[in-house]
C-alpha cells in the first residue's frame, strides 16, 4: 500500500482541529496540525504535507490570505493544493468561490464553514487526484 497522504490542518479552533483530525485519520490520511500561520509555515517545511486545509481568519483577519500567498510564491511548495475554509460569507455577506476569487486568493478550492465531514473528505480526494495528474 502506498504511503498515506499527509494533510496539514491550520486552524485556531482546537475543536475543529481535533474533530477533523479524527475524521481524516479515519478516512485513511495522516494528519499534522498547526494553530497559527507561523506554526503552519514550520509544519509545511518540516512535514511536507500533500495538502493544506487552511482557515481564513486566525490571529488576523487575513492570516489565511497571507499564508496562501507565500506558499504559492514558493517554487517548491506551490504545488501543494490549498483548501481554504471560510466562515466569512455569513458575516460579511460576501461569499467566495474558487471561480471568482481563486486566482487572487491563490487557493485551489473553497469550502464554507461549517463543513460536513463527507464534503471535506470528498474535496480532499479530488484535490489530491488533481495534483497527482498534474505531476
Amino acid at each position, binding site marked *: 500500500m502506498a504511503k498515506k497522504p499527509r494533510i496539514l490542518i491550520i486552524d485556531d479552533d*482546537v*475543536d475543529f482541529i481535533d474533530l477533523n483530525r479524527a475524521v481524516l485519520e*479515519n478516512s485513511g490520511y495522516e494528519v499534522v496540525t498547526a*494553530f497559527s500561520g507561523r506554526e503552519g509555515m514550520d509544519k509545511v517545511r518540516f512535514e511536507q504535507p500533500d495538502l493544506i486545509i487552511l482557515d481564513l481568519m486566525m490571529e488576523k483577519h487575513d492570516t489565511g490570505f497571507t499564508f496562501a500567498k507565500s506558499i504559492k510564491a514558493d517554487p517548491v511548495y506551490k504545488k501543494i493544493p490549498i483548501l481554504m475554509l471560510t466562515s466569512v460569507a455569513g458575516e460579511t455577506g460576501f461569499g467566495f468561490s474558487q471561480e471568482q476569487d481563486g486566482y487572487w486568493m491563490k487557493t485551489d478550492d473553497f469550502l464554507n464553514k461549517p463543513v460536513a465531514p463527507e464534503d471535506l473528505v470528498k474535496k480532499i480526494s479530488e484535490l489530491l487526484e488533481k495534483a497527482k495528474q498534474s505531476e
Partner: protein
Amino acid sequence: MGEAANILVVDDEKGIREGCRRILMSEGFAVDVAENGKEGLDMAKAKPYDLMLIDLMMPVMGGIELMEQIRQLDPEIVMIVITGFATIETAVDAMKHGAYDYIPKPFAPDQLMAVLNRGLETRRLRLEAEQLRQERDQKLLEIAGEKSKLRTIMNSMADGILVINREHQLVLWNPAALKTLNLAGHVEIGKDIAEVIAEKNLLEVINKAFNPDSSQYTIFSEEVEIVEPERKTLIVSVAAVRDEKGQDLGVVSTFRDITTLKEVEEVKSQFVRMVAHELRAPLAAIEGYLNAYLTGVAGKDPQFNRQMLERARLRSKSLIELVNDLLQFVRLESKRVERKKELLDMKEVIESNVELLKNQGDSKDVQFQVDIPEKLPLIEADRAEMDQLMTNLISNAMKYNVKNGKVIVGARPEGHFLCIIVADTGIGIEEQCLPCVFDEFYRVRGPKTRYTTGTGLGLSIVKRIVESHFGRIKVESTVDKGTTFTVKLPLRQVDAG
C-alpha cells in the same frame, strides 16, 4: 349711517331750538335740546352725541367756551355753530375753537340739513379712518409678534434651516444651520445660495425643489454626505414655498445631522457581527462533534468518541456562559441600569468570592493567598456587580494559571481609594496583547490557552463595572511569571467613622 345720529341742539332761543328739533326729528334723527352752554355740556357728559348745533351767544356759558369743553370731552363730536352775527371774524373764531362749520341765522331747513349731513358724513369718515388705523396698528403688532415668534422657533430648533427665494438668494437661516453646515461668516441676506454652500451634492438636493416635476410633492428628504470641514451625514428635507397660483416663491431646507446616529448604528451592527461570530464557533464545534459521534465518521475508538461528547458539553457550557456574559454586558451598557449602591465591606465580598471559587475546584490545584487588613474602609457600590467583578478576576487568575500555581488577592486603602489586587503566577500576557485585554471578545491566543474556554467578555465586563463605580483598572504582566490586575475604587466621600 346705521343708527339714527344723536344730535344736541344748544341755543337760548326757544324758537331755534324747537325749530331745529322738529326739522331734525322729521329727518329721523334723535334730538335733544339745551338752553345754554352749561346745560349742553352736562348733557354731553351724560350721553354721547354725534353732532352738536351750538349758538355762540348764550347766557351762563357761551358757545365758544362750550366748544372748548366739548373738544376736550370728545374731539370726534362734530360741532356746527349757529350764529346771528355771521361775520368773517366770528366764523374764523368759531373754527379756531373746533367748529366744523357754521350756519348764519336765520336759516332754511334745507340749508341746515345740507350742513348737518356734511358734518355727519365727515364724522363717519373720521371714525372709519380711526377704526382702520387701529386695525392696522393691531395687525402690525400681530405681524411683529408672529415674526418674533417665528424667529424664536427657528432659533431654538436643533435642526438647521435655510430659506431661499425664487432667485436662489438666501433670505432666512437659523444658528443651527450655520453650525451644521459650518457657514458662520459666509451668510448674508441676498447672497446666492451657490456662493454660500460649497458642497455640490447638497446644492443639488436643494435645487431639486425648483424642478418643475417637484410640484407634485410638498416635501422630500434625502440623506446627504458632506466632507467639509469634517465628514457628516445629513438628512436634508426640502420644501418649495408656493403662492396661491402654485408659483414657486422659494425653498425651505432643513438639515439634521445624523452622523452620530450613523456611527452608533455601525458600532451596533459591528457588535452584532462579533456576537454572531462568537456564537457560531462553539455551535459549529458542538454540531461537528455530535455529527461525528452519530455517523461514526471519526472512527470507532470509544475513548475518542467519549472525548468528543465531553468537548461538546464543554463548548455548550461556554456557550451558556457567553450568553450570560452578553446579557450582563448589555445590562451594563444600557444607561438605565439600576445600580443599588450600598455601603459595602469589600473584605467580606472578596473573602466570600474566594471561598466560593476555591470550593468549585479546578484541575490546576491553585493555592489561594488573601492579604486583607483586619478592617477595611467601606465603599459605596452595587453588591451584585462587586461579586461579578471579583468572580471574573479571580476565575481568570485560576484559569490562566499553571499547575499548583498561586492566586493572590489583596485589598488596602490608598488615599481616597480602595486598592484591590488580584495576581496570579500563571502564564502571563505578552506585552503587545496587554492593551487589548479589555476589548470585547478579545482573547489572547496561544498554545497554553488552546483548551481554555472563555467568552472574551469577562474583562470587558470588569472594566465597565469599575468605570461605572468611578474607579480605575490597571494590568501588569510578565510572560511565564504571572499577571496582576489592580482595581481602584473611590472610598465613600465622607466617612462618618
